[in-house]
């Protein structure tokens, strides 16, 4: 059981300005929930509290049935700023988590090789991060999290630095993995289409102080409209049911952005 539960969570940093207010969100075991919201509304802060890097000022954050007290490899994080080890090669970056778990050498090498193949970085195994483009670094950060095979995946705009083609490949791969081997995923994105394509539910946040404004159920529509029968992302995105959900979320977000202009 690896659910994530935000229970009446409030957060203010130092001074006292409220960053997050009364966040209630349940991500069920093996459910994929995406969070969208205006920049600075506190999405990363939510994810960091689930990861155990920040702690709520009021309320509780639970993973499984226990309150989060510290970070750990059961909750793999893909950071918004990649956070690779600059002094480690691609392989060494991906391998560290497995070494920490004392995975045997042969299995480790095999799993790292699979991960490198998945992110399409064959040939760059011995490169250092600074020798890679931003998008390539982001893929290494994704592989470093995937390779742990964690119960919970916390992803902060993981495809933000990718070009459109690579992003589509990674999105399709994520959907494939999610069907094959479902995980509890909390996924932050600015891409509404990406959220609707990947998630079971999409949580929309308000601008500061961040609250959950609305939670949109995508999964029931996806099943009813048989989105999975289309293997290609562009076919799904053309479906009327998809467009309908996307537009709904867009409008909801637009109200928030318009509010910010006053």
């Amino acid at each position, binding site marked *: 059981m690896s659910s994530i539960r935000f229970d009446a969570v409030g957060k203010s940093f130092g001074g006292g300005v409220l960053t997050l207010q009364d966040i209630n969100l349940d991500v069920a075991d093996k459910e994929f929930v995406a969070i969208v919201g205006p920049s600075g509304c506190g999405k990363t802060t939510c994810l960091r509290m689930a990861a155990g890097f920040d702690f709520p000022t009021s309320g509780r954050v639970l993973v499984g049935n226990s309150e989060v007290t510290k970070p*750990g490899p059961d909750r793999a994080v893909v950071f918004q*700023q990649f956070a690779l*080890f600059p002094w480690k090669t691609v392989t060494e970056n991906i391998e*560290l988590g497995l070494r*920490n778990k004392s995975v045997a050498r042969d299995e480790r090498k095999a799993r790292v090789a699979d991960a490198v193949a998945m992110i399409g970085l064959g040939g760059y195994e011995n490169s250092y991060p600074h020798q890679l483009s931003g998008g390539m670094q982001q893929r290494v950060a994704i592989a470093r999290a995937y390779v742990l095979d964690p119960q919970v995946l916390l992803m902060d705009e993981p495809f933000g630095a990718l070009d459109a083609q690579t992003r589509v490949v990674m999105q399709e791969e994520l959907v494939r993995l999610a069907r094959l081997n479902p995980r509890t995923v909390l996924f932050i994105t600015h891409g509404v289409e990406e959220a609707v394509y990947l998630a079971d539910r999409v949580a929309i946040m308000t601008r500061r102080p961040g609250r959950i404004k609305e939670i949109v159920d995508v999964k029931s529509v996806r099943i009813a409209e048989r989105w999975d029968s289309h293997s290609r992302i562009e076919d799904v995105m053309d479906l009327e049911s998809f467009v309908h959900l996307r537009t709904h979320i867009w409008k909801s977000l637009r109200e928030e952005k318009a509010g910010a202009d006053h």
Partner: protein
Amino acid sequence: MPLSRRSAVGVTTLAVVALAWVLLTGVSGLVSPGRFPTPADTWAAGIQAMMRGYGDATLVVHVLQSLKLVALGFLASIAVGVPLGLLMGWSKTAEAVLNPVFMLLRPIPPLAWIPLAILWLGLGDGAKILVIFFAAFVPSVINTQVGVKTIERPVIEAARMLGTPRWRFVREVLVPGASPMIFTGLRLSLQASWTTLVAAELVGALAGLGHMLNLAQQDLYPGMILVGMVCVAIFGALTTALLGAVERRALAWKRTRGGAA
């Protein structure tokens, strides 16, 4: 500038200095040999020091003695300074406890430790190594401490998220993350070791370049003074180059883009 061109410029500069030396002291006699030795005097002094020795030992013995003191003082300062710097950079408590001590110790010139060092350890090598240690210690601590603080927070968080155990975290995250600054500290420490060496050897030494310089001054022997100074310069530069080679290997991951992939 390409490497060959740079070394050509360097060689030219040295040649001009040598020429000026010859013209000023030997040929024109503008500078009297009693103040600054001619090339011929210096050469003779060098040969004498190497073959027959000066101050009860040959030049090789003097050089080896000085190298030994510098190496031991420098290595001791790293062995204590780098771990202490790591601790102070990482732990706010350690920093709060140790920083006041450092504020007090830092302004003391390393040479002011000589009387205490002799009182504690006598006139042997120990006291000299201790003085070099004090001089080299501070830069390695301070720079290591700063180096730890320059590690980006997300990188440290990533290591924690991956469940990195403590000693692996120190070895594979803290040390390499701080290593660019650690090496800056080591270069300053090495420099401080050499600057302190000569002064440390002025007192009660039986061999060493500082001892040699001190004797040459008492003997009013400018040629030998210059030989001693040139030796300090050469071996200072050699050890610095050695440290630079180690640094380039250790920081290979930092080389600029476009390096071999």
